[in-house]
């Protein structure tokens, strides 16, 4: 394990390459440009491909074509760019193509801001494209997790034939932290049986397609895909929680916000308020069982987000309204400080 000091975006790019990412297609947008810059400098030297596409739409469709050949590939963007990619993401899901998509969130709606944000939670977990669809989403909270989860995302994408999202924010993308890389990543299978990479007259032709004109055919395809989501739920639904056993209040937060709430929880404990923390690592599938376990002795739950309140919906659904759930959030590019969160906790007592 080598250890280096790296920016989140660059560490993520390096992790992707080590995980066997052969092709990267992207379009410039702040605050994720270091990913494309890193890829353009590194991938071609290793025999890989970097293409700066004409648009986010172009980039996601290049991913579609590249993934169809069974080649490990990745694209990255930030919030407004992600909206443009949604058509392509829906097709990727519809055609069961594995790839990794990174969203380094910034403020919205519209052009919003270039400051950190978590306002794409709903889009990411509910509506990343038209149609009956979902996709696994990892939400790292450190540069190290950006590395680990990117690597994992490639494996899960391939195992379940689905796009996988790494959902971070401008804060994680831009900050530097010490990080360790695995010595060698997995590289995936070279030519999966379903790939449209030329049959060489050695197998039947393959078709990559999302069109099913017969209702029963489409319904069956979708049902099979949702069965896969259930398997992902069983196998890869992750969360981390601390000091929850005796806690009166559980603070739930994901991504960089979870670091702030961790500090706020420690401050509250120092004042004698029993606070525990809960952090979803996958936001789809949402770690419902883990949240229920973490909250079994809690009197109240506080959800903190860099948004007007989006993940709070999933927390309420998971707890089935059995425990009161309160919310504290900042929008517009503000990162909530531990003191603000602490004041909110005091107010809940």
């Amino acid at each position, binding site marked *: 394990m080598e250890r280096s000091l790296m920016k989140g975006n660059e560490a993520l790019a390096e992790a992707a390459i080590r995980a066997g990412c052969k092709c990267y297609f992207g379009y410039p947008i702040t605050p994720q440009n270091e990913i494309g810059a890193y890829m353009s400098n590194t991938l071609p030297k290793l025999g890989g*491909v970097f293409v700066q*596409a*004409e648009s986010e739409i172009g980039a996601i469709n290049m991913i579609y*074509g*590249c993934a*169809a050949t069974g080649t490990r590939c990745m694209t990255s963007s930030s919030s407004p760019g992600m909206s443009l990619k949604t058509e*392509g993401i829906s097709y990727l899901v519809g055609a069961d193509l594995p790839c990794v998509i990174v969203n380094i969130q910034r403020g919205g709606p519209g052009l919003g801001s270039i400051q950190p944000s978590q306002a794409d939670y709903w889009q990411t977990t509910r509506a990343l494209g038209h149609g009956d669809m979902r996709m696994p989403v990892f939400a790292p909270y450190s540069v190290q997790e950006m590395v680990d989860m990117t690597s994992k995302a490639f494996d899960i994408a391939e195992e379940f034939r689905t796009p996988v999202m790494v959902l971070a924010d401008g804060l994680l993308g831009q900050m530097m932290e010490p990080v360790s890389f695995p010595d060698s990543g997995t590289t995936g299978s070279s030519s999966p049986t379903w790939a*449209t*990479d*030329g049959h060489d007259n050695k197998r039947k032709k393959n078709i990559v397609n999302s069109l099913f004109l017969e209702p029963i055919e489409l319904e069956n395809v979708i049902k099979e895909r949702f069965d896969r989501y259930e398997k992902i739920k069983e196998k890869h639904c992750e969360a981390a929680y601390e000091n929850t056993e005796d806690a009166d209040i559980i603070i739930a937060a994901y991504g960089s916000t979870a670091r702030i709430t961790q500090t706020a929880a420690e401050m509250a404990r120092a004042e004698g308020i029993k606070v525990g923390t809960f952090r979803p690592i996958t936001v789809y599938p949402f770690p419902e069982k883990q949240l229920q376990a973490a909250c079994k002795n809690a009197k109240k739950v506080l959800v903190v987000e860099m948004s007007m309140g989006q993940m709070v919906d999933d927390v309420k659904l998971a707890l089935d309204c059995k425990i009161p759930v309160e919310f504290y959030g900042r929008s517009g590019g503000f990162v909530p400080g531990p003191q603000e969160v602490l004041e909110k906790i005091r107010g809940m007592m």
Partner: protein
Amino acid sequence: MPNFTRPKSLVDVPNHYCPGCTHGIIHRIIAEVIDEMGIDGQTIGVCPVGCSVLAYNYFSCDMIQASHGRSPAVATGVKRAKPDRFVFTYQGDGDLAAIGTAEIIHAAARGENITAIFVNNTTYGMTGGQMAPTTLPGQKTQTTPFGRNTAVEGFPIRVCELMSQLDGVALAERVAVIDPKTIMGAKKAIRKAFEIQKNKQGFSIVEILSNCPTNWGMTPLESLERIKTEMMPYYPLGVYKEGSIR
């Protein structure tokens, strides 16, 4: 006399195209070229939304169905991952010259080693005959019921002329498929495009003036006559750019 048989690269299934439509002819000459070059096993076709969206059922090579207009980007992804494979897109006029303008222009500008087969029939066939970017001035369509008024709906796009301005283009040629002579010419152009791709000489596009008897409200013969009398004067056949970009 050689027997007139189905090209090996065309799957023996009924197609969904309307009677008299030239998609069948175009599919056939592409398949013949693939057969003659012996590249069926090395070819990946990309067919986006439009009348030819189901073409993945008709060609025997590996096939990808793409979203509306995006097949040049999809083909770029395939070709960059597998540079030694043959990759072609099969696009209509609404797909290539309206919703997918950015994708085709930039694939061409990058000099992607792919071939675009561009079927221009001046209308959106699949959705019922709306105005396309290539609809001729005065032409009646579902969305120009009084004829395309250039003062309101603007002017048609001449794709080969546009493409000929891009340095990444190794071949931009317009052909038609209205009689044996033009069909042979179209096949020759497709062969040329595939050879250019084989030699890694750059982006190639073959525009094929085609018909739509159903949405034009014509018999097949009338529709072929319209290509000659109305389309060819506006879209002259010929080679607009030819030569390796490298």
